[in-house]
């Protein structure tokens, strides 16, 4: 859909996902790194544990479908080349510290004067203004400041971080939304604008019902370990249940939906001789999570827990689907690659990494469009892989390209 758009993506890991989403929608996304490759090629782990910037798995994960060039924007030549490239671009996406690009004279304020239709997404830890603007970030710090971490973990222990970094993904996805809004506006009016995304705000945007609970009652939702916080004050609603070969997630809930699920589950348990008299006689339609008593919950949860322990997570998922019972097995990474639901939608696509002599599995697409095929096309770029084709397309001769390479500009 975005086949005629070009994106210059100068982000580090804070913003990879933005360009990835635009690339997946068909845009020509050119990743711009410093000569030798950006430091974000050292984030996370490596193919076969070989610490080589060309083998970084985090880089692979979020830069497929992008081309890649090198450019040192701290040199005069680099800045001129950047301005030339901007002439061909619709979007700039960057995640430098506030003020960095302005300091080089190629920030949004300068560039938007040269090209008023440019759309510029800036992804920063906390925003370009405000009391935290110069704060140092890392995922654990930002997630701590976004409300999620305080509620995660055991009640009487330290809050827990999700060790797979998340804040940058919320921000990257938001930046893509902002870019598309700005693009829609530009196509109507001819005017570009700045999309200002902060990791803290994007990561903190969704806090379930925490804010209204606080505003209406003054209550602060606390950590509840394997249980769910906030429904009944005294009765734990278990979320994480051990099964034969791992864990499944399941909630005993009330309401119409809960009644449907709990009746179906009871029937299932009964077919295997594991439903208790209590469960069989329970009137689920009148079951309410807000008024449930502690022993009532125990009578419900204990036999369910016993039932789950006699089955593997796959058996539970297979049994849950036809009965429309919402059980979520905790998937391992292997499970995801073998997941019947994903494979039934042809989700994984093997993409070649010729340099490694292997293929690796990538999501084929995040959306099925009936108009066009948006399957992932190619792996993340090598360092400077497309220097020749991109720089020659803006008029540089082979000799000039060699000179700039020798001078450390590209």
């Amino acid at each position, binding site marked *: 859909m*975005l086949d005629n758009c070009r994106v210059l993506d100068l982000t580090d890991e804070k913003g990879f996902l933005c360009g990835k989403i*635009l690339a997946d929608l068909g845009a020509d996304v050119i990743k711009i790194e410093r000569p030798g490759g950006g430091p974000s090629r050292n984030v996370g782990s490596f193919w076969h544990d070989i610490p080589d910037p060309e083998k970084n*798995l985090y880089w692979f*994960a979020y830069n497929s479908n992008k081309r890649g060039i090198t450019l040192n924007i701290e040199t005069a030549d680099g800045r001129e080349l950047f301005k030339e490239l901007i002439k061909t671009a619709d979007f700039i996406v960057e995640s430098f510290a506030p003020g960095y690009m302005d300091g080089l004279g190629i920030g949004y304020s300068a560039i938007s004067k040269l090209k008023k239709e440019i759309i510029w997404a800036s992804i920063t830890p906390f*925003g370009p203004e*405000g009391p935290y603007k*110069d704060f*140092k970030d*890392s995922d654990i*710090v930002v997630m*701590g*400041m976004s*409300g999620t971490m*305080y509620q995660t*973990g055991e009640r009487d222990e*330290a*809050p*827990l971080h999700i*060790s797979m970094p998340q804040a940058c993904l*919320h921000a990257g*996805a*938001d930046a893509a*939304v*902002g870019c*598309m*809004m*700005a693009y829609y506006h530009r*196509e109507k009016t001819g*005017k570009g*604008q700045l999309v*200002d*995304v902060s990791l*803290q705000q994007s990561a*903190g*945007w*969704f806090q379930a*019902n925490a*804010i*209204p*609970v*606080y505003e*209406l009652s003054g209550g602060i*939702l606390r950590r509840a370990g394997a249980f769910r*916080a906030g429904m009944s004050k005294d009765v734990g609603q278990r979320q994480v249940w051990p099964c034969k070969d791992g864990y499944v997630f399941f909630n005993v809930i009330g309401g119409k939906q809960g009644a449907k699920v709990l009746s179906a589950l009871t029937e299932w348990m009964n077919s295997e001789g594991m439903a208790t008299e209590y469960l069989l006689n329970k009137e689920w339609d009148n079951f309410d999570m807000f008024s449930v008593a502690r022993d009532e919950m125990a009578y419900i949860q204990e036999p369910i827990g016993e039932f789950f322990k006699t089955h593997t997570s796959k058996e539970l998922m297979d049994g*849950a689907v036809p009965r429309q019972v919402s059980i*979520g*097995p*905790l998937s*391992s*990474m292997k499970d*995801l*690659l073998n997941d*019947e*639901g994903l494979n039934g*939608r042809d989700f994984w696509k093997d993409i070649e990494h010729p340099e490694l002599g*292997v293929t*690796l*599995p990538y999501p084929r697409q*995040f959306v099925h469009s*009936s108009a066009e095929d948006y399957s992932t096309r190619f792996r993340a770029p090598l360092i400077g892989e497309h220097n020749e084709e991109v720089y020659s397309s803006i008029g540089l001769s082979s000799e000039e390209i060699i000179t700039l390479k020798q001078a450390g500009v590209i």
Partner: protein
Amino acid sequence: MDTENNEGVFSGLTILAFCWAVVGPLTMKFFADNGARVIRVETSKRPCVMRASGPYKDNTPNLNKGGYFNYYNSNILSLTLNMELPEARAIAKRLALECDIFMENYTPGNMEKWGLDYETLKKERPDIIMLRQSGYGSWGPYSRLPAFGMVLVPITGLPNYIGWPGREPLPVGVSAYTDCISPRFATAAVIAAMDYRNKTGKGQLLDLSQFESAIYFIMPGVLEYAANGREPERIGNASEYAAPHGVYPCKGDDRWCTIAVFSDDEWKTLCQEIGKLEYTEDPRFNTLLNRKKNEEELNRLLGLWTIKRTSEEIMEQLQAAGVAAGVVKNTADMYEDPQLRERDMYWKMEHPEMGQFTHLGQSFRLSETPARPYRPSPLLGEHTEYVCTQILGMSDDEFVTLMQEGVFE
């Protein structure tokens, strides 16, 4: 009522939405907050689970007083239709065909039952854009399985990354965490589809699975398994390549701070700030590898310093010195957060049943066309008459007759 002249990127667009829980409203919000007229179909026969969820204003269960619902539905119009009745289905279909975008995130099967599936609508309007956004996609082996975020979180594997070594995996504390993921992917795709239609005249069906889009949030883990055969391990608050890196107890009831040190310079600065410069020479802590080896002791010693101070003091002091550190913010801290306030994350508006009530604002800022709070979340069916008479052009008599037949329940 001024429902037509909202400014913003999507001013002039009309969207029909059959939306449920949180995924639907977050998607609608992106459009409604930026000027689109978003008509959400509801029914008192089966109100959205959010309308029937606490907390309630004055602790009184009431479909119009739910804090959870009202937090997420600002700028949206509510049309009630009892879809059991053919007249209601006809109204819904007419709106679906006349509006600019039709979006839904019900469990697949409902739209088909009501004759609102893409194939049917396309026959009458070839350039229709329809977004479907269910838990597992509108087709495929799991398509008929009802989904909600608390189950989607484990099925995407995220809890493998939450917990202490050797102990059970834990859920993300913000329940239904994945609910905020697919709306962003969906919105980007819908806007691209509108642009595509403007340029080619072609509409399309966009089908998203909340499960699939959430996998983008753990993709490095999938590649780690595919490349190296390694499954995630629970590592508490540690980082493989940083120490100290964790959450530390602070002065007060359940108060905590984060500290993350990624370089020797930052380590030296931290040692200076806590008055223990000798740690930089200490054979237990002088290098990253030694700090990783003695991480437990390092964390314990650092905790002795943090426990005597408030998390705010620690954040201010260490950040001023150039070390990444922050308050682990609870909801009260989030509500008061000066940075988020400055960035307009919350919109306080007068709601007819809630009084002064905080609605969720936008998660980012557009410099020239900012999202705006135009109106509080709708009462159930608040805009039914407006939609029928002003948008569909029904006469008052026709409207009253249908109302008496129960079409708008």
